[in-house]
């Protein structure tokens, strides 16, 4: 088994060498042609030629091939028209891609995959997301904490660590993008996705605990790369398990560079640029350098106190952010009924220009998945570290992640955006540039500014801290996956590459890098949801046994 695992890794290393070397060669080839321009002579950070080259690289070698698979549009049945709707007009299907006419809404396969997974887990676990809610709160409160249990941290600490990775710019920028592009109705579908996502979190985090590995020195390692390989091997699907584990690890490393890094820098920069306008004129790289240095001292320099402080401040910042949002809602309480009406109305009766109901649904689900990462398996890496007597207990605590992330924080942002109407081109035509440019965090900042002039300053602080702690946490996820693939020696090269992406995030704000971020986090769901679905039978049996004992009051309460 070990041999076959190594075999896959070697094969993958060979492939990645091949894949990476060819674009590099292409890029090098492109440089001499650009050498005529003076920009190429001095590779200055703000050189447009250089940025374009990086952007083109992302588009051609990363975004397009992955998007072709992950966002493959599925034809669907349009009930109002009473016909099957392929996304490409059949009359133009034979023409080259750039001449094809698009009709209807694209239904990306990865979104269908995530929704189907979350719905399946909700039914398979008998609505654990709803019936387990009170138990989850008790677990996180520490009612069952036994310091003698094996593991690194308490349930609360594990949840806080997982949240520091998920509560980020997806909650501030991502939501604004969702409302801007899909209308208020997207919020309704985000909420549904958050509630369904709780079940995905439950199953993946239970499995992470079941198949974790505790080193002799007490350090825990677990997550999809472990349960996919070991769990499926137990079921006699060893080859599939190894394949999925390797696939997951590769996607996770890429996602850590994208959504866990470049996206965070790009969006937080967008928000603070509205206050620090000096950064706007070609000085973006300064922010990138500062961020790279701040992340570098922690992940390479080993100054862990900063990371610890940042991670502990996140719950506080979360609270502050919610208070700001609540203040705005309170100040506009007369508009709240209208906002809810608008959200429900546009959720089911959406503007055809925004892609109809299905288009809104897709946007809502996509942004929710991007924000709470349910189904992508990332949080399972953090939850594996919790001290737990039984895996189900940590699994039961994990659904609070999507609750805090999506049901609370995302909805707060969303309501503020809807109530202030900054998304509406009719009311604020000048803010449409943020919507079109995917500058979600900047849009949220504007929404706050319309209410209280100094709120954007608070937001800037919160945004930078969210971005920072998210990057630190994601660097750990990526590092775990990189070392799973290539051994411990991959740790340092991985971290250096991570810092490069922190810097890149500040200067390359082009759309392709953001698409890449989106894609990688969502594509992690392909191997993860498949493996978790195959393993869900075992989780259900354990859950039933656990729940029976819980209802019978057999658990010792330590507090």
């Amino acid at each position, binding site marked *: 088994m070990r041999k076959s695992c190594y075999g896959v890794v070697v094969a993958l290393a060979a492939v990645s060498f091949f894949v990476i070397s060819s674009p590099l060669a292409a890029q090098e080839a492109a440089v001499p042609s650009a050498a005529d321009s003076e920009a190429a002579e001095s590779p200055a950070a703000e050189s447009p030629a250089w940025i374009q080259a990086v952007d083109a690289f992302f588009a051609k070698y990363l975004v397009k091939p992955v998007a072709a698979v992950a966002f493959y549009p599925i034809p669907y049945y349009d009930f109002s028209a009473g016909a099957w709707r392929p996304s490409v007009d059949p009359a133009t299907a034979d023409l080259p891609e750039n001449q094809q006419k698009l009709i209807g809404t694209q239904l990306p396969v990865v979104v269908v995959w995530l929704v189907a997974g979350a719905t399946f887990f909700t039914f398979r676990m008998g609505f654990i997301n709803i019936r387990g809610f009170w138990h989850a709160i008790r677990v996180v409160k520490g009612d069952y904490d036994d310091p003698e249990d094996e593991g690194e941290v308490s349930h609360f600490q594990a949840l806080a660590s997982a949240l520091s990775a998920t509560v980020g710019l997806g909650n501030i920028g991502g939501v604004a993008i969702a409302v801007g592009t899909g209308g208020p109705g997207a919020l309704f579908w985000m909420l549904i996705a958050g509630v369904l996502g709780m079940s995905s979190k439950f199953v993946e985090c239970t499995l992470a605990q079941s198949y974790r590995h505790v080193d002799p020195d007490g350090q825990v390692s677990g997550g999809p790369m472990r349960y996919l390989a070991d769990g499926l091997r137990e079921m006699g699907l060893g080859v599939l398990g190894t394949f999925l584990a390797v696939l997951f690890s590769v996607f996770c490393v890429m996602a850590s560079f994208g959504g866990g890094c470049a996206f965070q820098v790009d969006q937080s920069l967008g928000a603070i640029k509205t206050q620090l306008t000096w950064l706007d004129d070609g000085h973006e790289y300064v922010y990138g350098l500062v961020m790279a240095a701040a992340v570098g001292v922690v992940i390479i320099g080993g100054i862990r106190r900063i990371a610890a402080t940042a991670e502990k401040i996140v719950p506080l910042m979360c609270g502050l952010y919610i208070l700001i949002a609540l203040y705005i809602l309170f100040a506009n309480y007369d508009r709240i009924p209208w906002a809810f009406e608008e959200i429900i109305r546009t959720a089911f009766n959406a503007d055809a220009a925004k892609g109809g109901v299905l288009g809104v649904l897709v946007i809502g689900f996509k942004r929710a998945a991007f924000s709470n990462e349910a189904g992508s398996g990332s949080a399972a890496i953090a939850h594996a570290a919790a001290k737990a007597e039984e895996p189900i207990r940590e699994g039961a605590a994990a659904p609070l992640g999507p609750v805090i992330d999506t049901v609370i924080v995302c909805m707060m942002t969303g309501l503020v955006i809807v109530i202030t109407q900054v998304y509406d081109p009719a009311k604020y035509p000048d803010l449409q540039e943020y919507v079109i440019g995917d500058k979600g965090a900047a849009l949220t900042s504007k929404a706050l500014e319309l209410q209280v002039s100094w709120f954007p300053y608070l937001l800037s602080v919160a945004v930078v801290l969210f971005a920072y702690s998210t990057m*630190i946490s994601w660097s750990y996820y990526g590092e775990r996956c990189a070392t799973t693939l290539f051994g411990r020696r991959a740790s340092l090269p991985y971290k250096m590459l991570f810092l490069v992406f922190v810097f890149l995030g500040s200067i390359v704000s082009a759309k392709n890098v953001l698409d890449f971020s989106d894609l990688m986090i969502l594509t992690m769901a392909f191997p993860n949801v498949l493996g978790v679905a195959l393993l869900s039978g075992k989780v259900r049996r354990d859950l039933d046994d656990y729940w029976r004992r819980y209802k019978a009051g057999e658990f010792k309460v330590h507090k």
Partner: protein
Amino acid sequence: MSWLPKQKVVIPVDFSDTSLAAISTAVEMAASPADVHVVHVLVPLEGLSPGVVWGEVNDESREKAVRKSFAEYTAENNLEGVQFIVQFGDPGFMITEYATDVGADLIVIPSHGYGGFKRLVLGSVAERVIRHADCAVLVLRRSDAE
């Protein structure tokens, strides 16, 4: 090196089955189990795992955990009496330094016997120990070495 029982045998373990099994070989070569110094080297913490961030995992907690793991192993395998030393740093360097400090007359080192690609990636602590040791080194090759 004579064939007489050794006074001080240093044996590094990384808690792999191979390395733990080699402890009994070291005991056979020593005058008494107390002359066997089992050394475990903890490498510096790398990833920012939740335990590290929250300060629950640190060098102190790790040393406590490996001591507990080792005590469990010796109790199960009738190896009571062997000494257990925990060091922090680079394994190859710390093992030889410890052997020099205590004036060991033999280092017994189990080798995973990796070959080819794995050898390149995983490296070999044994190789570094052989290169830097001041005393005799006995390398135990696995029967199924590549």
